[in-house]
């Protein structure tokens, strides 16, 4: 009887811990919006993820500044807007918000426009960069047309909602 009681307690504890952990994860496990989750945007490639030691495979020597800023994981995926505008979304998860802020500010130029995405967001004609907690997100479009600016902001909000 005592054994049965102990087993019940262990199972109950596991259930509570599991529930607490999954409850902490917001919405889903990926920051990348699925196709049509954001109006007009289709996810056009598989998500690729790089550990810090492999980040050079994706961004060559640029990886060093992310490693120094404490990058823990990097994920990337391609997107298409209305079948024409191509873009890439990079999500760098740092060990803390400071690292994300360091990278965001390092790349800032006088052309940057501040936008309300995440904790801090910057927009250029063909790109949006923002940070939220330990995450730094860069969204870059390969073409510039009348829709580019607003479409990127919309996608940025979609990513932000998943972080």
């Amino acid at each position, binding site marked *: 009887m005592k054994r049965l009681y102990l087993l019940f307690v262990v199972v109950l504890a596991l259930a509570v811990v599991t529930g607490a952990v999954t409850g902490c994860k917001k919405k889903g496990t990926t920051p990348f919006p699925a196709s049509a989750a954001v109006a007009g945007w289709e996810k056009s490639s598989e998500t690729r993820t790089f550990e810090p030691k492999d980040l050079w495979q994706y*961004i060559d*020597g640029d990886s060093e500044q992310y490693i120094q800023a404490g990058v823990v994981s990097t994920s990337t995926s391609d997107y298409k807007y209305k079948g024409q505008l191509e873009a890439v979304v990079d999500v760098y998860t740092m060990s803390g918000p400071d690292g994300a802020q360091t990278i965001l500010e390092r790349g800032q130029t006088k*052309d940057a426009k501040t936008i309300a995405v995440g904790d801090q967001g910057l927009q250029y004609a063909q790109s949006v960069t923002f940070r939220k907690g330990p995450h730094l997100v860069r969204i870059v479009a390969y073409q510039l047309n009348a829709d580019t600016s607003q479409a990127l902001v919309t996608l940025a909000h979609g990513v932000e909602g998943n972080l």
Partner: protein
Amino acid sequence: MTSRREFMKEAATGALVLGTTKGFGVTHGVDSRKELKSSVVIARDPGLHGPDGKLDAARVSALLDRAISSYTGHHQPSDAWKRIVLDGGAKDKVIGLKTNGLGGKGISTHAVLVFAIAERLQQAGVKPGNILIWDRNARDLQACGLTINTDPKQIRCYGSDVAGFEDTVETWGSSRVRFSKILTRECAMVINVPILKDHSMSGVTFAMKNMYGVVERPQDLHGGGCNPGVADLNAFPVIRQKIRLTIGDAMTSVYDGGPGFRPEHLWQPNALIVGEDRVAIDQIAWGILDKKRTEVGLKTLESAGRPPLYIATAADSAHALGVNDPQRIKVIEV
């Protein structure tokens, strides 16, 4: 492969100067101080990009012809290319075109230039199957707008991810590398087709830095602002001897935030930079990037704390890869 000791002996005795004793360019020669002078051709066409922002293929071909004719002194492009193939020791052998697609779509070697080079090679008698367009992997090639093709009867296009790397680790100075089998086994001669970019660590990435894409673990060569990594890597005999000509893509470039695609720092120099002396080419490229940076109010690369020190290292007596002294570089603008 020649050992470092053997190479140093050859360099010291003058057997190897600027990578080759017999160049393709007509302007190689001595200047008033009886010193060897390297030529670099910068060919420009302000109308290279159409109103839609896309490159005009016909103008790119014409620009390539102008650059190669100026460099070699041959008025007919086919004559110039025949000479390049013959002097490169590549008659009836495989000629590689090493592109650079690491920056992703938007800042990779343009396919239209690669196709133009391949077309001229064929007009010079090179069989399609003896032209091999290559880079690190399929993704990099696709970023250039190229399609993977392994059919031996056609122009081939694939990466080192398909061909693999040598088992042997080669050493030169600080470099310990395993070379792509495309370089060591398949190509008799390689034409380097890099794209001009700012680089967050090395300052400039162009002719010599593009060789990071021919080894298995380039990340090991990034320390110290890629110095002496870039110079040491280019000093390997297999690179020195097989990379005979650089046709640098400076049609689009990124002057800050590189080597990735940074549309906010994108610019169109609308130029091709051609030569055999990879050090001289990078020295000129450094000047072009700095000029643009200054124009837009950015610090020069040196002031920004990332001068491309590897260029001087490549020119030193230990490496003897070329000249970085502007007085010894003849820039031909056409």
